[in-house]
């Protein structure tokens, strides 16, 4: 009981001091989502740096219509669990498509690079 009280106290103190609140537009994650995340948990997972190292190759395979999970199953699993990396992959795919589309149509050159 003491431990429960101490842990809860620490948890809510951390919440207060770190202002861990979602912005208005961010929905509250439901326990079902957390349970799914727990269900997907494997003994060995790559971390965000490992996923980042391979993400451009993973994205290129998606864009070329191949199945990246065959080569990069660890990245696939990480992306299923890690919301931040999933957001980055989705943004990357949008960026690739936009860059390719505009390049194909003739993209106006940008201004000078600022060293």
């Amino acid at each position, binding site marked *: 009981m003491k*431990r*429960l009280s101490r*842990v*809860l106290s*620490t*948890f809510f103190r*951390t*919440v*207060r001091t*770190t*202002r*861990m*609140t*979602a*912005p*208005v537009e*961010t*929905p*509250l*994650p*439901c*326990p*079902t989502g*957390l*349970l*799914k995340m*727990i*269900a997907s*948990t494997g*003994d060995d*997972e790559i*971390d*965000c740096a490992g996923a*980042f190292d391979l*993400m*451009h190759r993973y*994205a*290129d395979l998606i864009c070329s219509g191949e199945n990246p999970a065959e080569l990069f199953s660890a990245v696939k699993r990480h992306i299923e669990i*890690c*919301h*931040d990396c999933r957001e*980055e992959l989705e*943004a*990357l795919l*949008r*960026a*690739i498509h*936009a*860059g390719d589309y*505009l*390049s194909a149509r*003739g*993209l*106006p*050159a*940008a*201004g*000078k*690079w*600022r060293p």
Partner: protein
Amino acid sequence: MHSPLAPVKKAVVRERNNKEWILNLTSAGPKREEALSDLSAILLAGLRAALRGWTRTRGREFDSLADDFVQETLMQILDKIGTFRDLSRFTTWAHKICIRIALTELRRKRWQDSSLEDLAEQGRMMSDMRSDSPKDAVHSGMNIQLLMKMMTEELSEKQMAALGAVAIRGMPLEEAARRLGTNRNALYKVLHDARLKLKGRLIRDGMTLDDLAN
């Protein structure tokens, strides 16, 4: 006055293969300038699409923001161009770096104004969620209190704080890591250990993986 990235001429970005990108960017003189200018345009076009839903992607404010992201990206690319392996398109590698820079900053900005009132409101929402058993919790899809109880019984204080921030509150990893005095990878490891512990506990309590996933 033009933003440094505003189109100043209607020249078309020249297509390059990976070898040409590396050669041009590591050379000196006009070819390097041209390659940097073309890469800026490609990254900017990518950012406009990538950041839809994150921020307004038109207007001077976006131009200025995107300019900062692209300039930072170009500096990082030039700094680590020797680490690029010819296993993907060069521009995909460049977009990846740009997206990471942009989203890290936008997440930080999005969370910097989060208020204590939001927290109180979420606390009230959480306290309204009730049920008696793990299976009920899953079937109702609403019981966070039971999970919180398991968390307190199974997890260390550090794991509780990490899971509370990221999985319960939905805080981005880098922002949670910054506030908890760690880094994104170390935080991911803490979260992984916490999820493993909770998975073991839920299975010991009679849940199956299907129960958890559905």
